[in-house]
């Protein structure tokens, strides 16, 4: 602790963040980077520096998966636990690594050197199995790589000295359309929008009928206009780069290789609503992209695309700051994201009011997904009508799909909206497909008879995840993985989600252990309905989706796990004998079937 005197660390870090309480999460992330974890005296010192109640600091520190109020290893290994990583062999690889390092999963090794555990989907499903070491992603794991990693850790090699190829992350772009095929200079779209004037630019957004790519599909122009018209001059544009949905990784690719389009989209939004401040909320798992993103921001500032008087337009002042998340899927929900940006626990807010009127620090705020913002550059360049010419009437433009699972060519595919699931499966080289999970864990499970359906808000809506399962896969295990995911990621605010997801987890584990009965399936369905009806936010409401869908479409996967298939026929044998009894005039016990006895024989 001597080289990490808590008071000095807290002082340094808090000063670097201007003792700004809204930066509490960023302070905790930085402080932990120095010390390795967050010892209680450090939390006390940070609370004192920021003049916050200590309990509040402890509350925030305890909320995020990547903040550690208890000691962890100098090497923190976290295996991605998404179903696609599991299908690629992650559990066996984790067991192998634990064996080599002589450490139990979830525990700290005795010498404090290493801890190995699982984490929710790291967004590397196209090149899994993946893991994070001290926050840095390693992809395409196999036993040779696990040996190599174990050796590097045993030799206490600093991460910077590890072979670079271990950290290589590929884009895997397989199909380009309007967005991924675009070649434009930074600022071109912005200049076009400025030339149209603020209102003219919003008019193009209206014509484009662009809907949010984060999943909900709200019309972007309507959101922007509501924010523009909201009371208060201090508007904010937030880019939601908290892509945490299991099976999606398209935002990762956009941020890695198309960051200019994303930042330009944020600036276009700022032009429309009159915002001066922009915030990009980057999920903790994508922290490795941070330096590149900051470089892009600096380049854009130097080019006059950010800062005062953007592109020479007097009064158009806008700049962007990046905030880091720390492992909380629920922060993808826009109001939870705003709470997190304000340095609080990521608990979704009560609505109304909505973020467009009362968002970040109570100011009118536009929250848009990474892909949505990138798409606005296309509209600025070609005009709204041209944009609306592709896709379907209700879903204009193209959609990026993150394809993973059982297919020959996983990666990013850009299609005009309206593409059929069949077509996508053919393109990615999937055969013998049993099911496709569209939209991730919170999305919809499609069975074979539905593959003619189309990717569009009016048919199969999606934020982008597209996970393929061939006939060898057990759809019960797929659903069980998602249920564990939701139980882990529930913020715990409301009763149905906090307890319901934990109960569902218990039921699924009971079934997996072969102790299920038909009553359990009824309970699962009932808890699922309650979650859907009563949950505070979309996480709880969508948590039962994968179970409900697989119970409906792949019921045998559940039923063969039941110990007691408690069958009750609708046909009543004794009642069917009633006419015979009437005819013969008999109604003595001998003229009745004892059904209880019949079934027990």
């Amino acid at each position, binding site marked *: 602790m001597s080289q990490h005197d808590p008071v000095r660390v807290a002082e340094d870090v808090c000063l670097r963040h201007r003792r700004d309480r809204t930066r509490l999460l960023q302070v905790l992330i930085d402080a932990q980077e120095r010390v390795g974890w967050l010892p*209680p*005296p450090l*939390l*006390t010192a940070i609370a004192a520096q920021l003049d916050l*109640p*200590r*309990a*509040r600091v*402890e*509350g925030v*520190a*305890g*909320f995020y998966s990547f903040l550690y*109020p208890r000691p962890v290893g100098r090497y923190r290994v976290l295996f991605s636990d998404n179903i696609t990583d599991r299908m690629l062999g992650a559990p066996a690889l984790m067991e192998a690594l634990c064996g080599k390092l002589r450490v139990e999963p979830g525990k700290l090794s005795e010498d404090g050197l290493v801890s190995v555990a699982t984490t929710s989907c790291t967004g590397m499903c196209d090149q899994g199995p993946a893991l994070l070491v001290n926050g840095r992603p390693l992809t395409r794991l196999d036993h040779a790589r696990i040996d190599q990693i174990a050796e590097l850790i045993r030799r206490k090699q600093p991460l910077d000295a590890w072979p670079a190829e271990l950290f290589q992350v590929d884009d895997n772009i397989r199909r380009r359309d309007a967005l991924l095929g675009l070649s434009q200079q930074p600022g071109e779209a912005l200049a076009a929008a400025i030339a149209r004037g603020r209102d003219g630019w919003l008019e193009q957004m209206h014509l484009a009928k662009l809907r949010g790519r984060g999943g909900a599909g709200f019309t972007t122009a309507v959101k922007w206009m509501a924010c523009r018209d909201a009371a208060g001059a201090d508007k904010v544009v937030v880019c939601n780069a908290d892509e945490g949905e299991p099976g999606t990784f398209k935002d990762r690719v956009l941020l890695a290789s198309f960051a200019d389009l994303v930042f330009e989209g944020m600036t276009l939004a700022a032009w429309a609503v009159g915002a001066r401040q922009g915030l990009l909320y980057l999920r903790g798992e994508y922290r490795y992209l941070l330096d590149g993103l900051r470089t892009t921001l600096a380049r854009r500032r130097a080019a006059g695309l950010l800062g005062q008087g953007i592109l020479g337009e007097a009064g158009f002042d806008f700049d962007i700051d990046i905030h880091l998340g720390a492992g*909380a899927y629920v922060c993808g929900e826009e109001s939870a994201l705003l709470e997190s940006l304000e340095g609080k*626990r990521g608990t979704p807010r*009560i609505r*109304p009011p909505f973020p467009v009127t009362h968002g970040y620090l109570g100011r009118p705020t536009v929250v848009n997904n990474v892909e949505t913002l990138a798409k606005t550059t296309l509209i600025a360049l070609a005009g709204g009508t041209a944009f609306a010419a592709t896709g379907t009437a209700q879903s204009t433009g193209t959609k990026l799909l993150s394809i993973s699972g059982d297919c020959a060519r996983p990666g990013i595919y850009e299609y005009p909206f309206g593409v059929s699931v069949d077509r996508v499966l053919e393109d990615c080289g999937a055969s013998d497909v049993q099911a496709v999970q569209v939209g991730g864990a919170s999305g919809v499970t499609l069975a074979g008879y539905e593959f003619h359906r189309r990717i569009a808000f009016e048919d199969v809506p999606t934020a982008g995840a597209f996970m393929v399962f061939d006939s060898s896969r057990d759809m019960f295990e797929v659903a069980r993985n998602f249920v564990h995911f939701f*139980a*882990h*990621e*529930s*913020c*715990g*605010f*409301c*009763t*149905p989600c*906090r*307890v*319901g*997801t*934990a*109960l569902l987890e*218990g039921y699924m584990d009971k079934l997996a252990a072969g102790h299920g009965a038909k009553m359990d399936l009824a*309970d699962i369905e*009932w*808890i699922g309905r*309650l979650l859907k*009806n*009563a*949950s*505070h936010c979309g996480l709880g409401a969508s948590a039962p989706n994968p179970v409900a869908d697989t119970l409906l479409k792949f019921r045998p996967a559940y039923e063969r796990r039941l110990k007691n298939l408690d069958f009750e026929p609708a046909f009543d044998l004794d009642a069917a004998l009633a006419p015979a009894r009437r005819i013969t005039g008999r109604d003595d016990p001998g003229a009745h079937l004892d059904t209880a006895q019949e079934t027990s024989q």
Partner: protein
Amino acid sequence: MSGTFLFDGQPVPFTDGQTILQAARAAGHYIAHLCWHPDFPPHGSCKLCIVKVAGRHVSSCAMPAKEGMEVESNTPEINGERRALLQMLFVEGNHFCPSCEKSGNCQLQALAYDLEMLTPRFNHFFPDRPVDASHPEVLLDFNRCIFCELCVRASRDVDGKNVFALTGRGIHKHLVVNAESGRLADTDFSAADLAANICPVGVILKKRVGFAQPIGARKYDAQPIHVVAMQEDK
């Protein structure tokens, strides 16, 4: 501005800014709740106050009343859901009503009687939640916490002390106090604080007064909570 909406088929007047729960209550209709308190802004976490408006479930404590809306509350469907939510609260904590000194004064227990919760239904979680008896005046028995955050809010907004906060998340969410030691004795908490007197269940208990009033003669012993609550309002 004001108007009228239908609550279980009966007209209920409201003034602008009132939530469904507030307006219904002012008109004499009780809606079950645990995290809502008349003196605090809505919280919306317990979900006991869910009602159906135009076929959709909403939290009546947070949803503003609107002209002409049709609200269903006291129906078998909604009460069934409320009962299930109560069953969830009972299995996630450790509740021993017969031996609990809050028995008869506890809103969770009273609602369970009122909504005819006859069994716990789900498997008990049996969480390990050690009590904190460090404070001279007050005992904290975390076993019964339902995360309504009334103590958090009262201590922060009224007492100005910030004694309580929540940490962890999901089913591991739990109450903590404002001390590095984690002990209530090391905070500036006092039995006179509003936070010490607001817990709807039996987490915050004053020492040496537990059974001064016998069980059987307590708040919800003679009449159900939906009657007691409405009498209090008058």
